[in-house]
């Protein structure tokens, strides 16, 4: 609501509906329908994707710090997008997400290849940091080559900005989401098995290495289109899963997944408001705000979660979520359900058409038995 009504032509909340209905006739109507609504929708979708991808990565690698930024996935995708921009190759718009996916897969694959899949979490992270730094260096070389005007554009993009995005950008995302969401739903139960550890997962019939690769592929698929549109909005994939865990410490990965997506959407949606308004004539990128607020909050949550998990588990019936929910109350739950609905809609719709095609990409065979229950939920 704030995102819709605040801004230079201030539209009071009670007149929002009227201005939307008016459509093109008034200034407020145009501003709301053509600029603010797509922006908000894009922020919510991007946040949901990043949050879900972050959770998938963290669960698959069993590492609370495995985030896209630290695995080189984000910088790879950004490199894939920025390279043609600087080298002034004119490409059709449809190729851009493909390039981003290529870059992201390159970054993530390089990290995992160099670190070795079964290594300890810290080794993977440090390798990822090294890969990310190398990719960043390549990006900076590109930026040095660019001229001043391009430079502003790229710099803004690299920080993750949502400014001046229209409906075209939103519609460009849908096809990718249609592929990624069912894969995500199929993957969720496997993730909760992976949590038990490699040996237990193998004993239950999950091929751990292959599942991990599949998880990485899904994460890349989720992150790359979003990055292609609005740049690497930093550290949402770190904050959102921890928020989901903190509010609901006893649930499993399956339960956390939608919550993580919802929290990601909330985080980006909320961060976009100060990004637009804080330094009013200049627009700051949303990614800078998420990095600024997300990292300390995430670390604090991770720490308190590590300490408080045992305590929370002991007195679980008097769930801590209930105690805290009224504080944040109506606003967050409202936005949470608001973006939950369309998501659930697409899920069931796609699943309806799926048996005919015999399961799209990345379906992990042993999971199919359990997905029925997952879908029922």
């Amino acid at each position: 609501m704030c995102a819709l009504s605040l801004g230079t032509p201030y539209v009071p909340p009670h007149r929002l509906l009227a201005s939307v209905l008016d459509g093109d006739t008034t200034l407020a109507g145009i501003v709301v329908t053509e600029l603010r609504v797509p922006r908000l929708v894009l922020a919510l979708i991007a946040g949901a994707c990043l949050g879900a991808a972050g959770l998938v990565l963290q669960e698959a690698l069993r590492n609370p710090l495995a985030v896209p930024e630290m695995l080189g996935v984000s910088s790879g995708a950004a490199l894939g997008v920025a390279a043609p921009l600087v080298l002034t190759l004119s490409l059709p718009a449809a190729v851009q997400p493909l390039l981003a996916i290529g870059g992201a897969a390159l970054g993530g694959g390089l990290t995992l290849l160099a670190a070795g899949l079964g290594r300890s979490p810290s080794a993977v992270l440090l390798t990822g940091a090294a890969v990310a730094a190398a990719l960043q260096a390549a990006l900076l070389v590109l930026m040095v080559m660019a001229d001043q005007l391009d430079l502003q554009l790229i710099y803004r993009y690299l920080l993750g900005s949502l400014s001046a995005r229209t409906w075209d950008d939103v519609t460009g995302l849908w096809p990718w989401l249609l592929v990624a969401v069912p894969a995500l739903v199929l993957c969720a139960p496997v993730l909760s098995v992976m949590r038990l550890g490699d040996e237990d997962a193998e004993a239950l019939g999950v091929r751990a290495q292959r599942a991990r690769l599949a998880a990485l592929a899904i994460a890349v698929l989720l992150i790359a289109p979003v990055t292609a549109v609005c740049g690497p909005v930093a550290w949402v994939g770190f904050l959102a899963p921890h928020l989901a865990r903190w509010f609901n410490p006893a649930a499993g990965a399956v339960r956390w997944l939608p919550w993580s997506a919802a929290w990601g959407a909330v985080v980006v949606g909320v961060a976009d408001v100060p990004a637009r308004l804080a330094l009013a004539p200049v627009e700051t990128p949303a990614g800078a705000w998420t990095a600024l607020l997300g990292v300390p909050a995430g670390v604090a949550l991770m720490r308190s979660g590590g300490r408080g998990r045992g305590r929370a588990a002991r007195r679980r019936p008097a769930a801590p979520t209930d105690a805290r929910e009224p504080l944040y109350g109506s606003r967050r739950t409202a936005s949470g359900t608001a973006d939950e609905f369309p998501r659930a809609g697409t899920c069931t719709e796609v699943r309806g058409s799926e048996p005919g095609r015999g399961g799209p990409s990345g379906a992990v065979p042993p999971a199919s038995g359990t997905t029925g229950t997952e879908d029922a939920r």
Partner: protein
Amino acid sequence: MTRRFTALAALAVVCAAVEMVAGRGMSPGVAWDVLNGGGDATERHILFHLRLPRMLVSLGAGACLAVAGLVLQSALRNPLAGPEVTGVTPGAVLGAVAATALGLAGWDSPLAVVLAACAGGCGGAALLWLLAGRGRGDPAQTAVHGVLVSAVLGGLTAMVLLVEPGGLGSVVQWLVGTTEGRVWQHWHLLWPWALAWGAVAWLLAGPLTLLRCGDDIALAAGLAARRARTLALLCAVALTAGAVAAVGALGFVGLLVPHLAVAVFGADLRVSLPGAALLGAVVVCGADAAAQLSSRLLAATLDAGRLTLPVGALTACLGAALLLVVVRRTPSRTF
């Protein structure tokens, strides 16, 4: 040991010589001519007022970063504590950029920039200290927290840059680390600072060697461990800030050159500290020469006149490869 030092010094001289003739303005023959007293005014200007200070600055900055890294790694007993991953370099960058944007310091008053970078570096290190909290004994954990701190500081720097977009072009070069266009003024600023804090580091070499052995041994030998560590950290931050103010955030030099130095000269800091300084100078100077040569090659092949490869990009790529080797070779229990 003396032989190793001589070999390294010879290498440094070779690097410096290559650096002198690597630029694209004139051929090696002309450069030799100018050194012998010939050449016209333009050539003399290029050699004595552009190339010579550039070479000296790259040598000095490399030495500073390497010594700072070795001091940090010894004081924290952490093989992964370079100035880049402990938040010192990003903090220094933030300090310098913020001070410039707020008008407290211009690029024409370099001392203020150095002081601002120093304050920022201290701030970054303090932030990490707060964040790491009780987990600061674990090296990998500290390194991971350092990456997080760097992310926060990078976000702040980005904000400052976006509010003051005027000098974005030059600042981006500086963010990746470049020796492009360094003149005598930079050198005059760098060397007293580097010399003073380098001397402090040299005096601290003995206590640092003790600190490397562990706090218990250091205490038993009669060293005030806390005080020595604080002084060492301050020294490392100051050295890093000086280097950052001169050449920008050169990636990975401070993290990986100390490993090389310890491998070559052994763990006794009284020997390996000067060794690290020499090695750092060689690495940065050589990388700069290589960057100039390769950008010349690239410009010739791609026919793009204004293409220059900043040295920071080269060191970052090199350092990333080396870091992969270090992480892979070390048995997993350490990391």
